[in-house]
């Protein structure tokens, strides 16, 4: 039953993204993108990735919507639409351009599908990615760093410098945004 729901939701995902791209009103497009994020969160939930689903819902549906609306309030709400005459004049050129883009996209899709053919099956427990360093983390992390939870041990100890770098990047970005967006006294 979960599989059926997942398939329907993947279909809804495609519909949402195509609708968001095709809309001329950028505000409506933003709102539909919020729905896209909610649907994506459900799919992550079905895959048992609760933390990713959480990030998707809070960043995708929450903060991104607010940021895009802030950008729209500073710029303009509508997309540039060419006039009737201009549209008629360039119809042939546009069709040519769209055809070329379609062929390029199709080629990229083919290459990507070809690339996935060598990969192990979905959820395969013997896949190399699950035995590279994971075994050591599972068996030795408790005696090496004395932390009960593997994920915490990996993030805060084995990859401690990586986490420190990520945190400082996010902190710098936050400080820079506060300096850019603060209201001037004038």
């Amino acid at each position, binding site marked *: *039953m*979960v599989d*059926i*729901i997942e398939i*329907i*939701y993947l279909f*809804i995902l495609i*519909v*949402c993204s195509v*609708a968001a791209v095709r809309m001329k*009103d950028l*505000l*409506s497009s933003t*709102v*539909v993108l*919020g*729905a896209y994020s*909610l*649907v994506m*969160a*459900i799919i992550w*939930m*079905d895959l*048992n990735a*609760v933390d990713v*689903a*959480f990030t998707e*819902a*809070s960043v995708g*549906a*929450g*903060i991104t*919507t*607010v940021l895009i*609306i*802030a950008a*729209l*309030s*500073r710029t303009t709400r509508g997309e540039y639409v060419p006039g009737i005459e201009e549209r008629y004049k360039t119809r042939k050129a546009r069709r040519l351009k769209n055809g070329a883009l379609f062929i390029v996209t199709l080629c990229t899709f083919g290459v990507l599908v070809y690339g996935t053919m060598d990969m192990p099956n979905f959820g395969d427990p013997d896949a190399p990615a699950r035995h590279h360093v994971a075994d050591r983390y599972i068996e030795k992390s408790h005696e090496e760093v004395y932390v009960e939870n593997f994920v915490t041990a990996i993030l805060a100890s084995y990859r401690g410098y990586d986490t420190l770098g990520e945190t400082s990047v996010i902190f710098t970005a936050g400080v820079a945004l506060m300096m850019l*967006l603060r*209201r001037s006294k004038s």
Partner: protein
Amino acid sequence: MMFGLAALAIVVAAIMVLYRGIKGPRVYDRLLAINSMGTKTVILIALIGYMYERPHFLDIALVYALINFIGTIAFLKYRETGRLD
């Protein structure tokens, strides 16, 4: 089985709401549709939690309900004053 049927009904409702969200002539229709889509997401997460026999998904569903209105508030503030700050 019971939870599965309920989840399927929610999915059908989500599709109907999504139709209004994409077709909706005005941006307010879309906003309302997306808002009720968020509510359906909350219910669906709770149902999936019971289907996987992990009822603590209920807490996550509650936090989703808290996140759900942020976009709506930003949108309404933009429509009312024309700016966010």
